[in-house]
């Protein structure tokens, strides 16, 4: 059985493009929530977000961020731009994050045998394309391909980002797209580790990309009343007594995960070991988490059991921590049920106050945040958390990061619909 290690990471977030910007923002305890600028959201119920600081994602912006692309890769980029692929913002974010991870892990020709295991958000429905057709007296559904429809994308395919990555990097392994909502990011990385462990693959490019910062995405979430009704920059306050909803974010985090032997053979420094993972289903309600946290707690216990670790081994928990009244309380109960008395001593934080909820990519970007303790000896803070809710009976780290040396971290991701995932990382053996 091979151990799975992370050897490269790439991030695109509201802090900017690149892992350096991401770790820098977290290390300084900053929040990147801003007014939405990529489209006119002034009449929307929700007007703030963790938005990647770029108005338009297009080929020219992507080329400016991608260094050292081959001519063949550039030509594929052109092809996808002509097909309108980058209108779906997550496609470009996923590509940039993957390119950074690929470069950081010093991947070359031999690594093109990699599998892909990605968490991708919903297809992006192009409301603005529906609208003119609708206004003209009804959608011209039956228009032959060469007339109206090529100019109009009713939605982008969910796995478009996987296709772009596969072709850009010329990957030869299978492509797996996890569609488990907010649990997908953690599950996609866990799946990568599992493929390594069982010997099915020796290297996997994995992670998540999502953007709901488009009219239908933002509108749909607003209509659900999931976002905070306040349009303040501190709208998301995880585990805080005054919390009243989430803030939507966008971006991507990608990892190169490979067997420890392969990393050693390539002389690539592991950033962390993936020790365990577990998943469960609330099987409760479509609209709310199970309030007793029992299913989420079992996901944590499964992850620790797979890692062959007891609760006392956990040194830090990166929570799902959405800042919604129901989630945070249920998660705190789940943590306490899984860790028992040790929960009193484990620092817990959520980065959603600083970067928003990246939905399908949330588990991936928050897993990237779990590298901060190993790389810089810092536990990320919880932006805008000032007054802990006593019903969230866990040791929440405040707004500033906490200096600490930990050996094992736990990441929770809980999805709409009740899908729960937990994953355990360990400090790399040097």
């Amino acid at each position: 059985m091979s151990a799975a290690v992370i050897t490269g990471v790439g991030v695109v977030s509201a802090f900017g493009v690149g892992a350096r910007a991401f770790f820098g923002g977290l290390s300084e305890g900053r929040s990147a929530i801003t007014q939405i600028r990529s489209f006119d959201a002034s009449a929307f119920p929700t007007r703030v977000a963790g938005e990647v600081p770029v108005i338009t994602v297009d080929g020219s912006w992507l080329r400016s961020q991608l260094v050292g692309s081959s001519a063949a890769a550039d030509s594929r980029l052109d092809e996808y731009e002509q097909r309108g692929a980058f209108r779906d913002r997550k496609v470009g974010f996923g590509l940039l994050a993957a390119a950074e991870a690929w470069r950081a892990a010093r991947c070359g020709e031999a690594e093109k045998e990699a599998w892909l295991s990605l968490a991708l958000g919903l297809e992006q429905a192009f409301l603005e394309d529906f609208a003119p057709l609708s206004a003209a007296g009804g959608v011209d559904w039956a228009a032959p391909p060469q007339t109206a429809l090529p100019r109009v994308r009713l939605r982008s395919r969910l796995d478009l980002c996987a296709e772009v990555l596969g072709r850009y990097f010329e990957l030869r392994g299978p492509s797996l797209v996890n569609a488990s909502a907010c649990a997908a990011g953690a599950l996609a990385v866990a799946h990568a580790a599992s493929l390594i462990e069982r010997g099915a693959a020796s290297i996997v490019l994995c992670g998540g990309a999502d953007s709901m910062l488009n009219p239908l995405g933002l509108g749909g979430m607003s209509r659900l009343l999931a976002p905070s009704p306040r349009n303040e920059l501190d709208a998301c306050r995880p585990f805080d007594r005054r919390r009243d909803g989430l803030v939507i974010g966008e971006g991507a985090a990608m990892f190169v995960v490979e067997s420890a032997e392969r990393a050693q053979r390539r002389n690539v420094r592991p950033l962390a070991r993936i020790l365990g993972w577990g998943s469960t289903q609330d099987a409760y309600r479509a609209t709310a988490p199970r309030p007793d946290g029992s299913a989420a707690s079992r996901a944590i216990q499964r992850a620790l059991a797979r890692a062959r670790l007891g609760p006392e081994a956990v040194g830090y928990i990166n929570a799902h921590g959405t800042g919604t009244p129901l989630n945070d309380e249920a998660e705190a109960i789940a943590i306490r049920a899984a860790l028992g008395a040790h929960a009193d001593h484990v620092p817990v934080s959520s980065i959603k106050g600083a970067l928003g909820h990246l939905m399908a990519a949330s588990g991936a970007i928050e897993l990237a945040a779990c590298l901060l303790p190993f790389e810089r000896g810092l536990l990320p803070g919880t932006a805008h958390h000032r007054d802990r809710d006593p019903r969230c009976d866990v040791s929440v780290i405040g707004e500033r990061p906490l200096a600490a040396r930990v050996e094992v971290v736990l990441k929770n991701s809980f999805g709409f619909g009740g899908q729960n995932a937990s994953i355990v990382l360990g400090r790399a053996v040097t």
Partner: protein
Amino acid sequence: MKRGAPPIVVSGAAALSAFGFGWRGLGRALRDRALKPAVSTQLQESHAGVLASELASIPAAVDVGDARTQKLMSRAARLGAVAVKQALDDAGWADAREEIGCFFGVGASGGSMTELREMLRASRDDAGFSLTRFGSAGLAACSPLFAFQLMNNFTLCHAAIQSGVAGPNSAFYSRGNGTLVALAEAAHALSEGDCARALAGAADTALHPVTFAELVREGRAQNGFVPGEGAGVLALTREAEQPLAVLEHCGFRGPGLAPSELVRELLEGVDGLEVDLVVLAPWGASARATLREAAEARFAGAALLDISLGLGDSLAATPALAWVAALDLLVSGEAERALILNAGTDAAVGAVLLGRPT
């Protein structure tokens, strides 16, 4: 399958298709009867006259949830929830459902067009569509729970919620191979002991107006493409007193090689590759010829059944329906060992080997 581990067996199944709401008889019906597509009722407004392979109305006796819950569900989610309930019943798994795993292949989002239309209507001002009007009035014109119809993981989640299935789980987006991945993960979860029982399957529809429009736009709705819908589920376990079949192999490969090479690679190392039935599960018309060619080259003596010819293209659900059709032919004694091959538009190929229990 993990070497040395107890075999994974099929304890129950479910299938929802144009042939009805049950799995027994599906394989035989597909073998004996040709598809008789009819003008789609679901596409009537958007694509009038399109011939489709459509399910009849879901009978109340097999349906799940109350009217409010059903309104939350996309078509695929509802089919998935009914199929999971049927598979659990078929396997007789009434107890300890919180430990049952559930792995699903899911397709595209399927929001209600009525909701979308109301939203767009309320978003127009004198100049046409207005983003401002959309924000201030259009959103309020649709159901607050519209977003839940759009989330395609709910194809799995509604099934879990309705049936109380709460073990390890994952939803994989599928244009063919994701459904195979779901089966492989269910098998792995069983082999690893993550759960003792698991459901693997898929539910999908090509009959959502946006899905069909995108298939047309991508040039896939041609060459005999008949849009279909359905759901298929296998109930898998490591131990059963009277198993229906043994899951002998499950794997996928690609892209990068010719399909025949992928099939050869896939089946390397599988013991005694003698099969008397090959079931094809192509996603889209182009995959059909590819799979047929690969199957005929490698398994010339075996009976060949292409389920898309009988059921139309049910997208993510096609491979799962193929497993269940093969199961029917095994259980009815008409085949001893069946190989089910799937291929999608992502140039990947998957293979499942089901055998009669000894």
